[in-house]
């Protein structure tokens, strides 16, 4: 019995440690004060106003949306195509390529950032949206590959053979069978790519100019330089977005599961 109580206490405390910080920040988004402390003197939406109407924040949000969309498109297209190519077991260096595709997840962001800055400077792409999108795509593409490869691995190859024998040409098999079956994986890959881009700071520090300051980058410097409850408001938006994105992914996973 004491063992059981000890376990329950430990689990509760750890859950608190994991979740409480995220919850504690939420009410501060609605403070009327300029400092980020409890107790909250009175409620107000002024920091959301700041977020959406102050120039720096509004531009950061717009930039994040532009760069996130670009990254999502590029990473999803490249990653999905490559995952399809990786299905062929006859390809040489298949394992090596798969490792290469996943490696950007592992390499420390600062290391990649240094190299990327040198390289993009060479192309004249620093301080450009394209440069930031390229950098974000490098780190977002592994998530697409993992997600789409997983979905493709779940497709019974005989289903595609069956379609062929029923008279479908290879391109029709792809359009009518493979793609629809892989779609949940593609979608959750795209969502993960967007989330990765949204949260990327380090590469952005290295390759983006003042005109491509993203929301995450803006949060970083605002925590560093002049912290204000606008941070809490931004965090609030992030957490809400996370829950929405999480729901989308969980739903598409269960959609995938239901089909099998």
């Amino acid at each position: 019995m004491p063992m059981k109580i000890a376990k329950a206490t430990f689990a509760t405390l750890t859950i608190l440690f994991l979740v409480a910080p995220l919850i504690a920040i939420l009410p501060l988004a609605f403070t009327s004060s300029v400092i980020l402390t409890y107790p909250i003197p009175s409620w107000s939406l002024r920091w959301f106003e700041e977020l959406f109407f102050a120039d720096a924040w509004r531009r950061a949000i717009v930039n994040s949306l532009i760069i996130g969309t670009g990254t999502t498109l590029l990473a999803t297209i490249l990653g999905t195509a490559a995952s399809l190519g990786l299905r062929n077991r006859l390809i040489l260096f298949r394992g090596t390529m798969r490792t290469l595709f996943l490696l950007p997840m592992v390499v420390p962001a600062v290391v990649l950032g240094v190299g990327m800055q040198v390289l993009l400077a060479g192309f004249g792409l620093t301080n450009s949206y394209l440069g930031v999108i390229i950098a974000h795509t490098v780190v977002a593409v592994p998530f697409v590959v993992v997600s789409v490869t997983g979905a493709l691995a779940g497709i019974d190859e005989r289903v595609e053979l069956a379609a062929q024998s029923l008279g479908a040409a290879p391109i029709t098999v792809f359009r009518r069978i493979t793609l629809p079956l892989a779609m949940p994986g593609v979608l959750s890959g795209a969502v993960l790519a967007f989330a990765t881009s949204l949260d990327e700071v380090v590469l952005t520090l290295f390759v983006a100019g003042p005109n491509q300051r993203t929301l995450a980058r803006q949060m970083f410097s605002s925590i560093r330089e002049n912290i204000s409850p606008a941070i809490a408001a931004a965090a609030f938006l992030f957490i809400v977005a996370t829950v929405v994105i999480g729901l989308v992914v969980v739903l598409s996973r269960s959609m995938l599961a239901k089909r099998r």
Partner: protein
Amino acid sequence: MAEFIRFERITKFYGPLCVVENLDLGIEKGEFVSLLGPSGSGKTTLLMMLAGFEQPTSGNILLDGTAINAVPTHKRDMGVVFQSYALFPHMSVGENIAFPLQMRGIGKAEVDERVKRALGMVQLSALVDRRPSQLSGGQQQRVALARALVFEPRVVLMDEPLGALDKNLREQMQLDIRDLHRRLGLTIVFVTHDQSEALTMSDRVAVFNKGRIEQIGTPRQVYDEPATRFVAEFIGETNLVEGVVEAVQGQEATVRLPSGAQIVSAVSGTVARGQSVFLSIRPERVDLSEARGEARNVLETEVTDSVYQGDHLRVQLQNATHPLIAKLGRRSREFPPGTKVFAAFSAGDCRVIAP
């Protein structure tokens, strides 16, 4: 009847592994041919080459007299039923069955009409809007069958289609498929490793072993007149006894067993005097009695064990030099262990097989 499908000296290698070796096989239009053999003997591979999923390493496959090696799968017009059914998980039952018709550019009204008929044929009309995952194994199997038949393919290929069903359902489906074959005049190539399934359903059975066909013939032929030791052992149960040929008289040979007994037996293939051979004696063809009867072949034996198995009595016997098994009808009397009995069988009920 004209020969419809012809495998001509087909060889298939997977890397260094020879899976099908120099195989010749002809199948007639409207025929039901089973490819029967143990797992790994190359049956699926042969079927996959016929469907166009795999290419033979050498040799030709002819359909209606023309080589189809270069024809891609989707233009071969063959309905394939897989063991796992391979239904499209994201389409309803109706969409699954409509798929091959849409691929052929058939108009919507006719597609609906034919899907309806196909569903009626397999008695699934009520389930047209279900997803495959909402069906039982037997229902999925019927959908797969309807999908493979609805476009009236030239040949229907089935790879162990009943393997995943339980025994009762499997036997029901065996009869249903046999019935469809007769009614629609289909040409069916059917892969199985279950000998009773092959015997039940087929016009002819091709017995596979290690990438070769050991024997091809009607169910009666492969059971009663096994050409090789492998066929005799693989299909049904048999007693194999070694001996030496003493004399050959037409379709019969006299074989001396190590115990000295002489057996007169029908012959598969050709044997010569002095040759070492096997005798295959089906257990259910052996009669037991305590008196030496009039039969041509009689062996003196002693009962070592006897087991009642419901539909038959299985008696294990020991001759001076070799064991023997007899299966007796359920009306037979009991033979307690230790009883001395004579095992008798006619020349037509055993078979000389060259090793």
